[in-house]
């Protein structure tokens, strides 16, 4: 009943906010067709051609997704420069932008149609809980660099916005079934049903399962490794209210079970269930557009579900948490004639985490934010863009503090008001070149676990109980970024892009590692405390080169290379011996990809070769010792070949890591080769 109340309140709020004025109905497919390139709103909030966006952005189109051998979003992203994709286990992946590889990466905000799917309880993305099938994706937008001035907290080093296809005027139903080695099976259905003029319904669902990879005996092994499971069911109702207003109401429920490395590098099995309900209203006017949105996300996260109480890690791993977040936002885009565009926005968030392993039964915060963006074109070939956002956050806790009480409740009566910004200058050089200089500041908020966890941790040799606790005094991580880029498109269609970047990440947050830095507390029985902490900084700099073109009308290619150097600035008492964070060693120096796509008649094929140089990742041993594992330089090859059977059906075979390179996933657990066959059909 409370959820229903929230939903109704959110719906009413959004409708009330949008009382007057024309939907900025961004039809990505139609606009992309008209301008000959993808359109994005993920950089400034206004629609822009990808070649004119004032930030480093990659858009993966639905055609590219259909041809790719990838079977999930992280695998699609790994083919592009500037990102490190680590598939730690069969189900758990993390995507890091421009260095700073770590498990539960909290600095990449992931959205579906602008709605957050990033999970705030631990500051992470579970890519199996996105609630979207690959077949219903219009495009995936990857923005490298801070984007907090538009999206707020956690768009610190980048954003991934997954845009789904519109319902469209024609009914369509698609189905897919895949089976493969290592116990892999997947079925999915997507449908778009025009119910009446101006009324459309989209429903999608899927189920996936596969075996976990073989875990080396030397590493900590969970008591059992079961299949990875993922289930999704989502629906969106689209309403055209008049000629200028569109309303979308969406809801969904997803569930997932998978083995994961926690930020502490302990390997445990988790079960996640989430639900979402939201409403989006767009209204178009003669001068611009108004957008309002409200949504509520619920998450049940059960950690360590197969870890027995006799296990030394059970006290850390065994965590049951419920997270609820409500978001309400509104923005106005105003066209300033030929001069440019202005955007102003407001946002409210209420985020609450409940668990019996917290400082008190409830830890949460509220955020109120205001933002603005100005995109100016003082001359035909020059564009200047600036965006600024201020967030005001109130931290809070509720209920009786858990014993032993380490902090006073007043420590949680805290507020912070950080600023984030972006600035860019773009110059069109000749008819086919463009030069861009841009930078900004993004913010990663400490997760609710970082603020409020309260668990006892194993320390067999220590005569005192040791508690791992959150810290309400943690500061947000700030990411400063500067880059310059030049892109050139030749008449032949060859496109070259080169980017130099520098990023500094301050106030890194880390979980205690193998050795713990403890504080002894006498209250009156003595015990020791170790905390999540702001441990230092790192900077990353390097170059990204990419090229794409067509060899024949049937054969396309793309290639990219990224060099990322990382410098750490972490004090000796907060280094890898004490905190499970080592951005320099964990980030490969070289990344490179080569993709070839071929299509002729009913046949299509795609090959991706992916190079990743060596890195070091970490894992706990059964002796509760944190060790560093060398992940060797690897070249992995993924491939897919398909054949059309008539107009509406296609069969295919695909393989991942055909070279069976053990380091290709960048995980302490070696990669394996996986093959699959499938059939897809559309009506």
């Amino acid at each position: 009943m409370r959820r229903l109340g929230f939903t109704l309140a959110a719906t009413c709020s959004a409708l009330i906010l949008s009382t007057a004025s024309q939907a900025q109905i961004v039809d990505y497919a139609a606009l992309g067709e008209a301008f000959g390139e993808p359109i994005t709103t993920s950089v400034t909030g206004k629609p822009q051609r990808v070649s004119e966006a004032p930030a480093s952005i990659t858009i993966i189109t639905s055609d590219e997704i259909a041809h790719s051998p990838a079977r999930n979003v992280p695998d699609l992203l790994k083919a592009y420069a500037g990102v490190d994709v680590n598939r730690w286990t069969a189900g758990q992946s993390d995507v890091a932008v421009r260095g700073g590889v770590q498990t539960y990466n909290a600095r990449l905000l992931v959205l579906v149609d602008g709605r957050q799917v990033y999970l705030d309880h631990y500051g992470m993305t579970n890519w199996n809980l996105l609630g979207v099938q690959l077949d219903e994706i219009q495009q995936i937008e990857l923005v490298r660099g801070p984007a907090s001035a538009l999206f707020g907290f956690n768009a610190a080093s980048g954003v991934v916005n997954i845009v789904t296809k519109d319902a469209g005027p024609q009914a369509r139903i698609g189905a897919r079934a895949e089976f493969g080695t290592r116990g892999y099976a997947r079925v999915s259905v997507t449908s778009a049903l025009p119910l009446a003029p101006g009324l459309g319904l989209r429903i999608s669902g899927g189920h996936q399962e596969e075996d976990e990879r073989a875990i080396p005996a030397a590493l900590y092994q969970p008591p059992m490794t079961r299949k990875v499971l993922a289930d999704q069911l989502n629906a969106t109702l689209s309403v055209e209210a008049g000629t200028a207003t569109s309303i979308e109401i969406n809801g969904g429920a997803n569930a997932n079970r998978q083995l994961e490395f926690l930020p502490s590098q302990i390997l445990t099995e988790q079960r996640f269930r989430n639900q979402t309900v939201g409403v989006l209203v767009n209204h178009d006017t003669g001068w611009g557009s108004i957008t309002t949105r409200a949504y509520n996300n619920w998450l049940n996260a059960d950690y360590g579900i197969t870890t027995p109480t006799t296990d030394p890690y059970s006290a850390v791993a065994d965590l049951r948490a419920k997270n609820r977040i409500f978001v309400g936002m509104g923005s106005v885009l105003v066209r300033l004639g030929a001069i440019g565009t202005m955007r102003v926005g407001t946002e409210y968030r209420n985020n609450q985490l409940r668990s019996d392993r917290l400082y008190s039964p409830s830890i949460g915060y509220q955020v109120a934010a205001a933002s603005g963006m100005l995109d100016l074109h003082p001359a035909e070939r020059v564009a200047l863009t600036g965006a600024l956002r201020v967030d005001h956050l109130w931290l809070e806790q509720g209920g009786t503090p858990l014993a032993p009480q380490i902090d006073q409740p007043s420590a949680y009566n805290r507020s912070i008001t950080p600023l984030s910004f972006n600035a860019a200058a773009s110059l069109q050089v000749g008819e086919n070149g463009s030069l861009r200089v841009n930078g900004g500041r993004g913010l990663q908020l400490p997760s609710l676990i970082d603020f409020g966890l309260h668990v006892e941790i194993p320390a067999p040799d220590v005569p005192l109980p040791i508690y791992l606790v959150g810290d309400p005094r943690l500061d947000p991580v700030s990411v400063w970024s500067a880059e310059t880029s030049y892109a050139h498109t030749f008449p032949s269609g060859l496109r070259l892009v080169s980017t130099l970047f520098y990023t500094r990440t301050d106030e890194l947050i880390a979980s205690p590692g193998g050795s713990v830095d403890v504080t002894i507390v006498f209250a009156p029985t003595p015990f020791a405390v170790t905390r999540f902490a702001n441990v230092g900084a790192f900077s990353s700099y390097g170059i990204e080169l990419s090229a794409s073109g067509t060899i024949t009308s049937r054969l396309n290619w793309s290639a990219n290379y990224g060099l990322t150097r990382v410098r750490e600035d972490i004090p000796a008492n907060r280094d890898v011996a004490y905190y499970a964070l080592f951005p320099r060693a964990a980030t490969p120096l070289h990344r490179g990809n080569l993709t070839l796509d071929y299509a002729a008649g009913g046949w299509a094929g795609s090959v991706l070769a992916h190079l990743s140089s060596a890195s070091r990742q970490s894992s706990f041993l059964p002796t509760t010792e944190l060790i560093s594992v060398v992940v060797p330089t690897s070249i992995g090859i993924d491939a897919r070949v398909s054949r059309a059977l008539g107009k509406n059906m296609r069969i295919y075979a695909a393989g991942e890591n055909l070279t069976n390179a053990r380091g290709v996933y960048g995980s302490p657990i070696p990669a394996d080769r996986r093959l699959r066959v499938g059939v897809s059909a559309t009506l």
Partner: protein
Amino acid sequence: MKHILFVAGICSLSLLWPATSAPSAVLNVPVAARIISFVQPTPAGVVPVAIVYQPGNGGSEAEAAEMERSLSRSNVVGRATLRPRRVAVANLGQLNGTRAAFVTSGLRGYQDDVAAAASAQSILTITSDASCVATSRCVVGITGGAKTQIVVSREAARRSRIRFGSAFLMLVREV
């Protein structure tokens, strides 16, 4: 090193390969057709579209024929089905009943007449002739090359009472 040489080789091949884009003087019909769907309210059903040309003008006739061929291959845009018909520039009364007009280039001497007829009947005019838009006689201009550029004349749109969605207008160059 072998990988770098391989990529360099592919880049060189791409540079050498000839461009396949159409000459910029010919209207990009798929783009022009798509632009019709950005008009508010969005056209639906059968939408008559005029192809305005000059009989006896070889370039204009050839472009008109190419427009017809292109629309015969694909004439469905969003919820609209485009039904083309040729309209001679000397007989603009036949524009009656159309929602949009694809104006061939080479009609400089008749652009005032086309603008007047289109304005009177709220017809969206689209052309590849940049001068027609620059002088506010046509509503939309499309230029080709490596990157499609779309120009909208505010004055011509206002005169013809044509309103576009704001997302589209944020992507074009307004003059």
